[in-house]
């Protein structure tokens, strides 16, 4: 497994989309300056998912988490998002990436950004065949609030060839083709652990969450509501 050089990346970009070896990075803004010897610079996109305070005293990694765990936010180019000290937010790259079936990637925080004690990515590995804007798990680990400007360079993409990689007949659709940051998709812990033969899964004892506001539009609702009376969102 070797890192792809600038020339190798360009050669992949110059392959027709119909070829499995083709690489897509779009939009490639300031294209002539976007490449280093062994990497491509990536920019911060305009869409964010802000984590909500969970309705229980802990985050429960179940199927509900992807539905109600975040608030969507669009920050137009030229505006900024404030990330308070020690807070996190999900963002995405401006660039949509389509990796060939024989290339994997790694996304790294740009060193200038990292030196502000901002972590851009904590799950940096991108599997061959991936296609989508890359979801960024942005964490401000500094002691001061931070301004994020969509459109600015935040990360670097390093590509590696994967010798002898076999092209799958069909792609997995779980995270296929996202253009906005995506919330995590969990199965219920019970369901997942059952496959390992674990039949009893415990959950912390905590009062049942009282949903008196719609997570989408924040309309006040009766405690037993299953749908929002205003925007009709499923609760």
């Amino acid at each position, binding site marked *: 497994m070797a890192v792809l050089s600038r020339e190798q990346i360009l050669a992949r970009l110059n392959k027709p*989309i119909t070829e499995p070896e083709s690489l897509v990075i779009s939009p490639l803004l300031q294209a002539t300056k976007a490449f280093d010897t062994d990497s491509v610079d990536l920019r911060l996109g305009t869409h964010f998912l802000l984590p909500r305070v969970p309705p229980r005293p802990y985050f429960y990694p179940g199927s509900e988490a992807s539905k109600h765990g975040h608030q969507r936010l669009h920050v137009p180019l030229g505006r900024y998002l404030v990330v308070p000290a020690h807070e996190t937010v999900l963002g995405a790259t401006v660039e*949509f990436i389509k990796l060939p079936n024989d290339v994997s990637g790694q996304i790294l925080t740009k060193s200038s950004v990292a030196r502000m004690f901002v972590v851009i990515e904590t799950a940096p590995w991108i599997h061959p065949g991936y296609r989508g804007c890359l979801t960024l798990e942005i964490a401000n680990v500094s002691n001061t609030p931070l301004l994020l400007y969509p459109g600015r360079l935040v990360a670097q993409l390093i590509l590696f060839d994967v010798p002898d990689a076999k092209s799958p007949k069909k792609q997995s659709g779980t995270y296929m083709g996202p253009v906005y940051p995506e919330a995590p998709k969990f199965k219920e812990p019970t369901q997942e652990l059952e496959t390992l033969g674990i039949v009893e899964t415990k959950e912390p004892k905590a009062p049942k969450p009282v949903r008196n506001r719609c997570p989408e539009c924040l309309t006040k609702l009766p405690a037993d509501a299953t749908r929002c009376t205003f925007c009709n969102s499923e609760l």
Partner: protein
Amino acid sequence: MDEVNYLQVRVSEIRRTADRLASIIPDSDPFPADLGMIGIPYSQSSALYLNCLIAHEIGHFVFQRFNQKQKMLPEVERCLKASLASQPTTTAEMLDWSRDRLLSWAEELFCDLFAIFIVGPCYALAYVELFGLTTILNPDPSVRSGYSLTPESIFFSRSHPADLFRLKQHVTLLQGSVGWWKKVDTIKSHYVDVLKAAASVLDAQFAFFTDEQLPTYAGATLRGFFALAPTVQKVTSEVTKGLDSGLLEYEKFGGLIEAHLERAVVPSTVFDGKDHWYPDTVALLNASMKFSLESLEKLMDSVKDQKTLLAGHRSRWLNRVEFLTSKAIEDHQLLVKEKGAISVGGSFKRADLSSTE
């Protein structure tokens, strides 16, 4: 929910509020006199193709701003005179009522045709979707050409022409100088069957219907509008003269855009074997709509565990195609604005990177 979605926002109220705020905020600008405002239902905002209908609303602004009513008035009078000639008497009241109908219908038709000039045939296809007009088709798929007219599809209201009459006029425009029809005709979709069905409806099959008692000359008024329709086509062509219909760009990049969508890839940069091009919004919208109508299965077939006949699965991937297209449209705005973009014959492409370090 319907009341909230289709709430009418009064522009005059917004202007008044803005002016009131401007009067108490030092050095603030007054409300711009020629600022157009378009309201769209909340439920429509995330449906990409239905937002093609915004171009129709822009048409209303153009109609009023460029005083198209005055341009059409002499022809309206001529058509009315001819159609009401068979009436025993013609009063001023009759003329006023009939003139109002013709002008109202003409404005709606103008806006439709204007929208097709702006966004291409995807407007007509989005119209079919919004008004659920596929219900006129014969449900038996083996009888592709069969259709039955539903009352809602052939009735003119006081303010709007009948849906199928509008579609018939869309087809006339697409078949005319705009030149899009040869592309639409090849799309394998029941939406296109609806357009073809609409084109074959005779003027005599349309009717005027409202809840109120209609005057005896309502039918004559309707005939007057049929005579006026070619003038509306002509006036719209004059307004949009010199505008690029987007057909050329679509012909260049439509196939590549579809190839990207088939692989769940944003089609904002397409490679033709020599250069990396940035397809424009009209090419993106129309190629994307064509793809979703006739080739969504190709994308779904490439993904594990997706069943093309399951509505939930189809809806998910249709939604994804809309997102990919929306992203490409957003990207296009960025790509053509930046300094590195090279303009060649109306299209934009990326600078060659092989010689740069």
